[in-house]
């Protein structure tokens, strides 16, 4: 596999503007509207997420459940979530995630997933660390269909 280009990561000084406001607002709208059926995409196909690194627990907005084709009340842990990624995308994501946690940087990466309803989807993953005392304690960001 080719080395992952470092331009996918960005310093936290670049954080302003990385989470585009229209995507963020779309997460809120998606949260209060429902797609016709599980696995179908709302017209706002974007969600926000957070991962608590103390136990890798996940918090997803409704849009992320829709993107992965899961019912909005389903329980999912991180181990289960990464199985939706295509292998090459999963490897890239894990490398960038580890780099982001180690070096306190954000990252943007386009990945391929196979949703729970069997549909292949290409999504943009935007992630930034939340630091406390110079240590990364959580990751948060957006997932959107591209």
């Amino acid at each position, binding site marked *: 596999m080719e080395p992952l280009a470092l331009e996918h990561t960005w310093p936290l*000084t670049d*954080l302003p*503007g990385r*989470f*585009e406001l229209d995507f*963020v607002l779309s997460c809120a709208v998606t949260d209060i509207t429902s797609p016709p059926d599980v696995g179908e995409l709302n017209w706002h196909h974007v969600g*926000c997420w957070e991962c608590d690194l103390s*136990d890798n627990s996940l*918090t997803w907005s409704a849009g992320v459940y829709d993107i992965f084709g899961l019912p909005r009340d389903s329980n999912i842990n991180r181990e289960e979530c990464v199985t939706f990624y295509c292998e090459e995308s999963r490897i890239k994501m894990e490398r960038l995630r580890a780099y982001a946690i180690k070096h306190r940087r954000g990252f943007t990466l386009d990945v391929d997933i196979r949703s729970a309803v069997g549909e292949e989807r290409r999504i943009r993953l935007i992630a930034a660390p939340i630091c406390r005392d110079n240590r990364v304690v959580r990751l*948060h960001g957006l997932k959107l269909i591209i």
Partner: protein
Amino acid sequence: MTRYTPDAKRVAQLPLQGKVGKIIRSLAKSSFEHATPVPEELTNFAPEVSEEALTRSIEAWRERSSYLPRELLADPVWGMLLELLQAEVQDRRVSVSRLCSVSEVAPSAAVRWLKALEHQELAVRRIAPQDADDDFVELSSKGRSALRCYFHDVVESHQALKAQR
């Protein structure tokens, strides 16, 4: 709805809607920070750099032309940045003329690259009080932070990993 945790214990917290609302507000605040100054600890985060690692990097940069044709290796900006960082670590000033000479390109090209560094806000030109003909150049806070983070995150961590083997 509560947050799912790997050991299946249900944590009594905010309802999911409240938790998601907090995430959305945090992301929105980040997107609004265009209009507010980035926290100082982020712009001025500039870890210590060992002079030894820096000297080795400068030597490695210069030694390339011992192995490969010099005309293919023009990398004046990197040479300038290394010189500026070394000057900062050694607490000395770098004149414009000195900076142009270490870049190993023609003076006219070096001046253009110096302007590019200033345009990117990585370096700042200062007026030399004693010598009106030769200003000096130093790293900006942005340039200092970027270079020191690079050395801390990439160069020194690779060297530490190599030392462990």
